[in-house]
């Protein structure tokens, strides 16, 4: 029984901790600037990254 109590408490408190610290969620703002700036630094101008985004049909049926 003690094992169950410990496991339950660990899981619930772990969930609270991860949720309250937003661990695993994408970061907007500074984190995003840093990530994208690094990406852009590693790419030369004229390479693939600078091709403006054009979407397309993205259905799973068409497999695109």
């Amino acid at each position, binding site marked *: *029984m003690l*094992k*169950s*109590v410990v*496991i*339950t408490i660990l*899981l*619930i408190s*772990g*969930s609270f901790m*991860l*949720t309250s610290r*937003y661990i*695993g*969620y*994408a*970061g*907007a*703002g*500074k*984190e*995003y*600037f840093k990530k*994208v*700036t690094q990406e*852009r*630094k590693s790419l030369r*101008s004229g390479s693939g*990254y*600078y091709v*403006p*985004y*054009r*979407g*397309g*049909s*993205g*259905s799973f*049926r*068409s497999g695109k």
Partner: protein
Amino acid sequence: MGTEDKKELKALKCPRCGGDLARGSRSQYDEDEEEDVTIPVARCIQCNTEYDRHTSEYYELFADDLTIDKDSTVFKLGLKGKLKDKEYEIIGRLRYQDEDEYEKSTWDEWVAVSEDGVYHYLVEEDGRIDSYEEYVPESIDMETNGSYIEFEGKKIPKSEGYTGRIVLAEGELPWKPEIGEATLCYDFKKDGNHYTIEKSDEEVSITKGEKLTHGEVIEAFQIEQYRDLYSNTLKKRKSLKWGSRFYIGGMVLSLMVSVYSCFSETPVQGVMNSKKILVDNSPVNDAEGNVYESQILYGPFDIPEGNKLYNVEVKIDQSIQPLNLEWQSFRFLLINENRLNDITGGKITDPAVLKDVFEDIDAMPEPLESYLITGDFWDEEGRDSDGYWHESDLSYNTDFVLDDPGKYYTYMELFSNNAKDVNSVVFSISRAHGYRYFIISFFILFVLWGISQIRSRSYNELPFEMSE
């Protein structure tokens, strides 16, 4: 060779030709399984006559298989004890096999006799013990109606009867049972009591019973060797049951937090109140062929809290313009007002400046936007092996954590294979509460609960099955 051995050999002969019986099998259609199954039979090696589970010969031949676990029991012959303040001694035992089953499906009837000659039957089946004693009903009619037995005003359907075949008889029984002997049984409940009617060729026996725990049996018959094992088993099962209750508690808490989080989003107000259409369905040539591009700037709007989780939902508003057998993709950029002011030199309201800025937005060494989301909407139809299908995906949502509060703009780029009303793509931003880890915890706790439930029923230190 003793008399018993001679009897055994005699029993394994074919009644038709006197040839030896051997184990065999045959294939037959099973209505429950709805397919052909292979069933065991006793077969005469001389005349090839088959004896299936509706014959005594079958049980004589297969008795060993059906009694292989006969020593796995709390009872034994000669055991003396006190049940309901009456001294009893176990004098015999019968093991029955359910005739409907090919696999082993047995129960034991232990016959106990009191000092005043009253018989008591202790029935042991699947780890459960029931104590039965002879019962004389106020009224019983087994013959008048073909479809049911009338027992003290209660109708017991005859279709509920099943046949038991004796596969083991030992001890000093009050009658001489034969291996394979058939007994038609009816088990039923009336007024909270269990009753059994057993009908054989010679007689009808009615017994009334109640459940006994293994603990009661161990105490009644003073079986010292099982006392501690029984107590340990019960303790462990109780502990596992309490453990499973904690898991349920954790599951309920996880679910409550998830539901609360799911329904407690606070929308950021006015995100689409103000907009500037910079480009409206401009034709563009690219790998997809001719596509239409639109650019819209929404805002400013206020995001009041920093370091919080936000949810963005972008969707097609079908009431403005439906998406019908076509696709549309979007690029959603969340831009801080200060950064936009810096890059435009304060000319934030000048469409020409804005257009120039957004033309080069991907070529900037540092991103202008605080966050970027891309996605597609589509509506398609077709035919496959299941026939016609029509499917669509008209919304997209995602979560992100925004560190800085303040005034923000949303720059939206839309691409489509047909010219579309730019107002048909709408979005909302909400302050959200995460719950994914609670959902994960819920499922982990559910699995653990299932395991501890199974263990709380199956844990056993005793050398025999115990279901309580």
